[in-house]
């Protein structure tokens, strides 16, 4: 899907808008306030007995638990294990998906033949295959990384195929008129023109890599954030469990932020690369 963002952002002026120079600071302030209110609710609701304090401890206790894990170094170990798995699966998916997608997209026959198979795999929920991966690859790193690869591969592969197939015909003709051969055409036109669409796929894969990994780590792991959550849950260390969840959310935010930054850099020649 070669998505060209053609639209204009409509900023409907709010009545009584504040002078512009303060705007940025004001925004940050307001957003902080919203966050504080949410945390305050989290703190107060269990203390007032609105929710069961044992299973939904107040934020301060969760924060304490998080700090304990952080100081002991456990959190870092789990975090590291998860991010390494996620990144290696994700990275391998990129290394497999992009070249394969380029080839499939370039040869219409390949695309025609493989399309239904790819559609089938893409629509197979990765987690349904978790038992298969465990059966075939065991419970070690291999199966965890493999399932991350599986989950990440299809968004990247299908976006790459689409990107290649949707390169503007005009650009191809233009390059041909300048005497470019097939190889040069591929490297100098098809590839750069495809990058933004490919990156959409990469960004989709980024969140998939974490989602699937968490589930995989809950089964047959000895470290990682998914393991941390299920372990602490089983041992009724509820604050620590929430600490693990918060860490995963942060991991997701960081990964997304990184990908958006890279995307912006790579497609700075596009009008609106929206995050």
């Amino acid at each position: 899907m070669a998505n060209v963002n053609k639209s204009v952002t409509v900023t409907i002026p709010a009545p009584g808008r504040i002078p512009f120079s303060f705007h940025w600071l004001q925004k940050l302030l307001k957003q902080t306030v919203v966050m504080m209110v949410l945390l305050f609710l989290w703190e107060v609701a269990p203390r007032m007995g609105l929710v069961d304090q044992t299973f939904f401890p107040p934020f301060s206790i969760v924060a304490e638990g998080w700090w304990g894990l952080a100081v002991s170094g456990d959190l870092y170990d789990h975090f590291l294990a998860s991010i390494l798995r996620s990144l290696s699966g994700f990275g391998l998916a990129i290394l497999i998906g992009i070249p394969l997608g380029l080839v499939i997209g370039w040869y219409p026959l390949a695309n025609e033949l493989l399309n239904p198979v790819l559609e089938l795999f893409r629509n197979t929920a990765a987690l349904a295959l978790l038992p298969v991966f465990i059966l075939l690859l065991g419970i070690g790193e291999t199966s965890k990384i493999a399932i991350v690869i599986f989950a990440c591969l299809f968004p990247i592969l299908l976006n790459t195929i689409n990107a290649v197939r949707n390169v503007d015909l005009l650009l191809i003709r233009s390059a041909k008129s300048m005497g470019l051969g097939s190889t040069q055409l591929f490297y100098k036109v098809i590839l750069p023109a495809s990058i933004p669409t490919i990156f959409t796929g990469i960004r989709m894969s980024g969140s998939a890599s974490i989602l699937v990994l968490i589930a995989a780590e809950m089964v047959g792991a000895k470290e990682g954030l998914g393991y941390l959550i299920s372990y602490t849950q089983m041992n009724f260390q509820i604050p620590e469990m929430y600490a693990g969840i918060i860490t995963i959310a942060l991991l997701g935010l960081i990964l997304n932020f990184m990908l958006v930054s890279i995307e912006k850099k790579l497609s700075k020649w596009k009008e609106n690369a929206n995050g």
Partner: protein
Amino acid sequence: MTDKIQFNHVSKVFTIRDSNERKNGIKEFTAINNVHFSVKVGEFLTLVGPSGCGKSTLLDLLGGLTKPTSGQILIDGKPIKGPGLDRGIVFQQYALFPWKTAMGNIEFGLEAKEIPKKERTEIARHFLALVGLSGFENRYPHELSGGMKQRIAIARSLAYEPDVLLMDEPFAALDAQTRETLQTELLRIWEKTKKTIIFITHGIDEAVYLGERIAVMTSRPGTIKQMIQNPIHSRNLDEDIRSTPGFAQARHQIWDLLREEVHQSQAFERKNETA
């Protein structure tokens, strides 16, 4: 003067899918029929004709992007083998590579010619100046106005020094003021470089203003209806030549020629569209 380009009874037939029929039928479709004319070295020929009469097809043939069904096209007496850097094409839509800067775009054809980096930059700078865009080296296409983009496209075609410049309605999408400015600039460049130029246009004014000779085509299937030697020679570029009686007269002659063709082609289209 010798002939630079020769069209020898050239026809082009497309086989197209017949979307009206359910059974995926194929239809033969003659885009141009028995086109026969020649262009001298250093000549500026403009080509007018109703929409869909095969002007772009003619240019594609000349550019080597498609092959004639019958007949032959010679350049310097030799038949065309395929696309080549001896002909530069400026497409109707600005076919700039969006991921390359203005400079990068101009250098593109030079890269294909394997000219060393340093020299490339020099040449590109020269042509950037020629089209009046010094200082815009590092802009990406989306950061340029329509007129600027088209000027870059022209500079790109000029940069690899083709003998023949093929221009397909290059100014069609521009506003009137910019268009007039670019027309004047194009004439300046032509006088400076003495290239052979074939210039396709919808606009009668444009054809009269630019062409030494004006080829008028019939509606579909296109053939050359008439070749008109343009009586206007004095090219004082800062004068309002368009408001002179001579201009009005030439304009009128072509207007009459085209009128019947346009009516014919519009009737044809309306019939087709309501079908």
